[in-house]
């Protein structure tokens, strides 16, 4: 996997190496080392100190029973992991993350593709539409959560709107009914993130030459056949990247949940991250919370590795490392 990530940049096809050693003026090696330290040092210190070290100490804390204060002495081995993974609430939390991830794939992906295809047609005001569609994505999840929290109040804006369009029958206790609330959150997530998918796919569509479609049409393919057999497969790399981002995002879901439901009612919307914060930060079970953090990390990491290995490897440029346009 590491090579998958590193290769494309190391050897960009058809590019000459920019810094061949110049015989005319060789720099002293001490000076070069000094320069390297100057340029690389700050980033390395920052990265190691605030990305790698915390993840490392989480593994250490997770082996202890510790409330966050005083000496860390109560070694419990893998007990925290056992407790978390065998507990109903955490199992439910993993389930909720998985449900959100699957729903995103089943609902958001086809919706994004359909809307992107539609918006790719010649359309007056397409630029304006692009801006509008993307707007929710730039709002923070916190603001999104507050907006929807207020709209979804019982007998609030959403209910009144539904009644007005004759859908009064479907009105629910959107945030209070444990059977409904996870799907309510999914609607909010879709509202916020669908624009990102559409924009991503529109960018992908721009890269498909019109001649390909015209050729297919000349060969007698229907619009549907052209779309299904030519356009969608060519969108493959974009779709695969979208799936990756969507699943990682679903696994990390926190802000919306925390503000809208705090994981409730009756743990109906607990996610791995909200469970971690609830135990680690609210209940001062730092050892236990760290174990949950490590599990969350492991789930994301394993998914990322497998996905890189099996899905993204086909994309010639290891898309994550592609440079921005």
């Amino acid at each position: 996997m590491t090579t998958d990530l590193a290769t494309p940049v190391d050897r960009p096809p058809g590019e000459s190496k920019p810094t061949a050693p110049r015989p005319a003026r060789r720099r002293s090696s001490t000076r070069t080392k000094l320069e390297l330290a100057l340029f690389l040092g700050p980033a390395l210190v920052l990265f190691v100190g605030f990305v790698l070290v915390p993840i490392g100490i989480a593994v250490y804390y997770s082996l202890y029973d510790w409330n966050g204060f005083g000496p860390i002495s109560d070694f419990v081995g893998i007990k925290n992991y056992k407790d978390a993974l065998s507990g109903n609430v955490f199992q439910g939390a993993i389930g909720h993350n998985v449900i959100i991830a699957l729903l995103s794939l089943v609902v958001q992906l086809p919706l994004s593709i359909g809307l992107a295809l539609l918006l790719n047609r010649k359309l007056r005001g397409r630029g304006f539409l692009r801006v509008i569609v993307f707007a929710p994505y730039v709002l923070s999840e916190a603001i999104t959560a507050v907006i929807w929290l207020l709209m979804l109040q019982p007998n609030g804006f959403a209910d009144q709107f539904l009644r007005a369009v004759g859908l009064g029958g479907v009105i629910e206790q959107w945030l209070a009914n444990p059977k409904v609330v996870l799907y309510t959150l999914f609607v909010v997530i879709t509202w916020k993130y669908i624009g990102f998918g559409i924009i991503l796919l529109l960018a992908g569509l721009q890269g498909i030459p019109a001649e390909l479609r015209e050729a297919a049409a000349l060969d007698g393919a229907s619009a549907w056949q052209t779309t299904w057999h030519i356009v969608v497969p060519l969108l493959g790399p974009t779709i695969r990247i979208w799936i990756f981002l969507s699943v990682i995002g679903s696994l990390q879901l926190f802000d919306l949940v925390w503000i809208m439901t705090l994981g409730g009612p009756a743990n109906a919307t607990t996610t791995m991250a909200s469970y971690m914060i609830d135990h680690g930060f609210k209940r001062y079970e730092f050892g236990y919370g760290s174990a949950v953090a490590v599990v969350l990390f492991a789930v994301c990491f394993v998914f990322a590795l497998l996905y890189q290995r099996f899905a993204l490897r086909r994309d010639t440029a290891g898309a994550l490392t592609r440079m921005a346009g």
Partner: protein
Amino acid sequence: MSTVATIAAPRARKRSTGTAITYVVALVIIAVTVVPLLFVIVGGFRTTAQINSDPAGLPSPWVWDNYRIILGSSQFWRFLGNSALIAVIATVLAVGFGSMAAFALSRYTFKGRDSIYTLFTLGLLFPLTVATLPLYLWLRQLGLLESPLGVAIPEAAFSLPVTIVILRPFMHAIPGEIEDAAVLDGATRVGFFWRILLPLSMPALTTVAVLAFVTSWNGYLLPLLVFNDSQHFTLPLGVATFQSQYSQDTARVLAFTALSMIPALGFFMLAERRIVGGLTGSVKG
């Protein structure tokens, strides 16, 4: 001639039906996107009593008090200032250190270069959420709780991978002849980096700066853990807190939320091309 006409006619009709459907769908998309935003903005011009009696109605009369009171209080401006300060520090650190590292990783050849680069790319897989709990304990040990640096520094650290991954190939692609010419003119490598490479990398630098800024601006979880004192709250944290604090006064919460949306939406309108380009470009397949 006539055959052409008969073939063309049904096709044109078909196209216009398709176009009509497209426009209808476009309108639905706009409505679904904009209505919640309008609900917040317009709701801020109503009183809570108006909203309670008719949640989807228009203001009658229009009330300016909610907005006036919030704009006149120091709270909103303080949240805004805190958010801006943190986002600026995080962006400067990420882009500053990130571009230096990308320079070293793209234009020097040395042992371990690829391993160091791989180490940074691995960071792409560790979003901040995963590390927040241990990060909180780490920041407490370093005495950075309740400090803007306690949020800005980790955010910068987590922005480094994407910054370096975007900048490195960009700097790599700048022809070596330019560097040779600079060296012939007596420039040191540091001088080349500062006076030639950075200006040439401006488009990529803007992209990574926008990414780092937006990520920091919208951050919620880390400020939630680091800040206890509402004096230090950022805007996302402030909005969420304001909402739970004044949950009985819907109109005021709506006005507060509406005002909080303005910076993000305004920034987006100004830099739409950069933001969309940056976000899609950085993940483009």
